[in-house]
């Protein structure tokens, strides 16, 4: 395998968790709820999946545990913002802090444990094509699942009735309520979906990307996923593009550090985060209201009965 091939493969691995988490958050935000707790849900997903996978020696159980943990955290968030109409920004930040702390507690007994790599899907013949063969046809199942998820989310939002209902509620919850659409019910499931995706992204980090647990291992990826949604103007296809751009930035800065360009390594590590800030800045300069933002995003909903 050439270095070039290896770099491409790691870019895919680095991009997949961003893609999964961002897709989940995209659905949540299209329903009009801003959940800033992605980082916390991801950390919980990573800790719980790793703990379950090591304990039961099963990747499948690990993944299930990670998604459950993310969804449970999201359910707590839903209780606050839907049940008590609490401020979404505050609740989301609290969820991140809680998730980072709690994941450290759950993961503590598993520091130092290791998992074996997951066998990639090997499509005989196709994966032997030089360069692109291994890139396209010899990835792990998660990568294919994340691509399928992108397509499914896109179809769901644009083509289905349920997706139309979700978009309407995100666009204007007052009107949606006046028409009798179940605002809180739809948002509850959207928040849960977002949580399960963040949990899955965390599981991928712990079980595939690093294959060990350490506190704070999510390293801001939840925040990048959040920024991706804005960068992508709330469109699934653009989330895919964005996730791979950010994934590439993460990997390439590592190689740039190794190549020793004479730039301090800290500056290079900051590149993906700087890119996040710049992307957000460019968007807000060009448009008063970020383009494509759901109209009711982040506004608490209290039905008037």
């Amino acid at each position: 395998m050439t270095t070039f091939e290896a770099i491409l493969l790691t870019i895919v691995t680095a991009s997949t968790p961003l893609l999964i988490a961002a897709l989940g958050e995209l659905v949540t935000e299209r329903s009009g709820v801003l959940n800033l707790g992605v980082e916390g849900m991801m950390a919980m997903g990573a800790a719980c999946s790793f703990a379950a996978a090591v304990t039961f020696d099963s990747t499948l159980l690990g993944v299930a545990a990670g998604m459950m943990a993310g969804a449970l955290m999201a359910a707590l968030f839903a209780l606050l913002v839907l049940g008590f109409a609490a401020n979404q920004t505050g609740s989301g930040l609290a969820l991140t802090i809680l998730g980072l702390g709690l994941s450290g507690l759950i993961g503590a007994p598993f520091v130092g444990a290791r998992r074996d790599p997951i066998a990639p899907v090997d499509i005989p013949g196709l994966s032997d094509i030089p360069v692109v063969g291994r890139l396209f046809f010899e990835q792990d199942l998660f990568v294919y699942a994340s691509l399928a998820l992108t397509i499914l989310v896109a179809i769901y939002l644009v083509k289905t009735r349920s997706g139309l209902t979700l978009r309407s509620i995100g666009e204007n919850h007052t009107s949606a309520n006046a028409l009798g659409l179940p605002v809180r019910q739809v948002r509850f499931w959207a928040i849960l979906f977002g949580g399960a995706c963040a949990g899955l992204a965390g599981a991928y980090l712990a079980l595939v990307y690093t294959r060990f647990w350490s506190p704070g291992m999510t390293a801001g990826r939840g925040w990048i996923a959040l920024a991706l949604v804005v960068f992508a103007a709330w469109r699934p296809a653009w989330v895919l593009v964005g996730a791979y751009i950010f994934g590439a930035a993460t990997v390439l800065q590592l190689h740039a550090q190794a190549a020793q360009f004479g730039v301090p390594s800290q500056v290079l590590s900051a590149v993906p985060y700087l890119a996040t800030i710049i992307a957000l800045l460019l968007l807000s300069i060009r448009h008063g209201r970020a383009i494509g933002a759901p109209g009711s995003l982040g506004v608490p909903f209290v039905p008037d009965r």
Partner: protein
Amino acid sequence: MKADVPPSGTPLVELKGISKRYGDLLANDGIDLSIEPGEIHALLGENGAGKSTLVKILYGVIEPSAGEIRWEGRPVTIGSPVEARALGLGMVFQHFSLFDELSVAENIAVALSSDWSLSTVREKLGEISRTYGLALDADRAVWTLSAGERQRIEIVRCLLQNPRLLILDEPTSVLTPQEAEHLFTTLDRLSSEGCAILYISHKLEEVRRLCRRATILRAGRVVATIDPRASSAREIAALMVGNAVGEVRTDAPHHPQGETLKVSNLSMPPAGLHGQALRDINLVARAGEVVGIAGVAGNGQSELFAALSGERLADRPEALAINGKPSGTMGIDARRRLGAAFVPEERLGHAAAPSHRLSENTLISHAATEVSRSGFILMNAAKRVARSIIQSFDVRAPEGDPQARKLSGGNLQKFVIGREIIRKPKLLIVDQPTWGVDAGAARLIRQALVDLAREGSAVVIVSQDLDELFEVADRMAVIHQGILSPLKPIGEWTKEAVGLEMLGVAQAQGGVHAV
């Protein structure tokens, strides 16, 4: 002609003793109302009389605290709008229940049951549009449409469900006179086809044009059920308001002079994603006169107000002169120091800070010229100012120095307008001075604006209420898609001419709507 069904047999819908309580406020108090099949029934009342609450109860949006609803004689509970639609109720909301970023077809589909696919919706939309002359483009995004077109979406959305009763809440408040006439024709036709219509309004002329029966609400109660054609406008108004409302005196002699406000070739790009650009605005307001700016909502009124008040700055000082001084690039306080005063459209959150006390709210504009010294607030002075506004403008507020949000809409509006008038400005610019305000407060505000002009100030009123402008303005212009028509004396305008300007027909430029 209308197929008027005599009030015999079983009414289509009957409300008995409907009450709705919000804390101390009884929004609806034992309301009885019955509607016959095919009848156009008016629900009349001032803002805050409880009309919107009542129809939301009927449409299942709000739960009544007490009372019974009978549908064709059977008692029913309408727990949600979905159940209401299943019974055969359709509703056109006052502030439309539309989704700006979605297409026309999507907006319609979202309110229908899930066995309607988008392609069936498109098909039926075309059919209904042709039958009733309600032209709509299925794939346009709603934010690109005019208010009249948006209302058509709501109406078509109801008609697709073959309603037995169509409820319209203040349907003409955002329409041009021509669009309103078109709506009336559609309603007459629906009624003749047997669909009952509950028509909510506070405009007497419309109700007399459309309805044979009207139920009048005041302070949450039914005060009378009458035939609006058999009663005089004055009698009905007295029933609605509780006592006779005087007219605004505008006949004081005046000789407007000077150029207190001069706007020259002012252009501005839109502020937001869906904002309106201002194009080459020219406007002069003279001392002693009231200048009115008419137009359908969203044609650049808020942008014009922002440009005049200094919330958005022009690119050159000469675009705008106050008392002869070029001030296009000056901020709000600098303009205030030149003798200008501004009252924005939104009372809570723009003109006043909801959780601040009235005395603190005087600071918003008075800080430019008084009640502060070297950056410190003179709290006693602020309190004095608040007290004198409350006295001079008949602001009925809770004792002491209440928070702004504790005041009713009409009283808060009197306060924010009084706050500016009491500064004795040479130029006052007001956006929607009486929007959502009861008749008594509206009269007081209009009189105060006219009096200010007669004392030698220039007053500019931006309003969507044509009747208001015809009552108080000396000269008027119409804004359409960011372009201001020439200013003409009020006597030279007819309602029809204003309507044509509102549609842009007079300007003979794009965006002409089918009427």
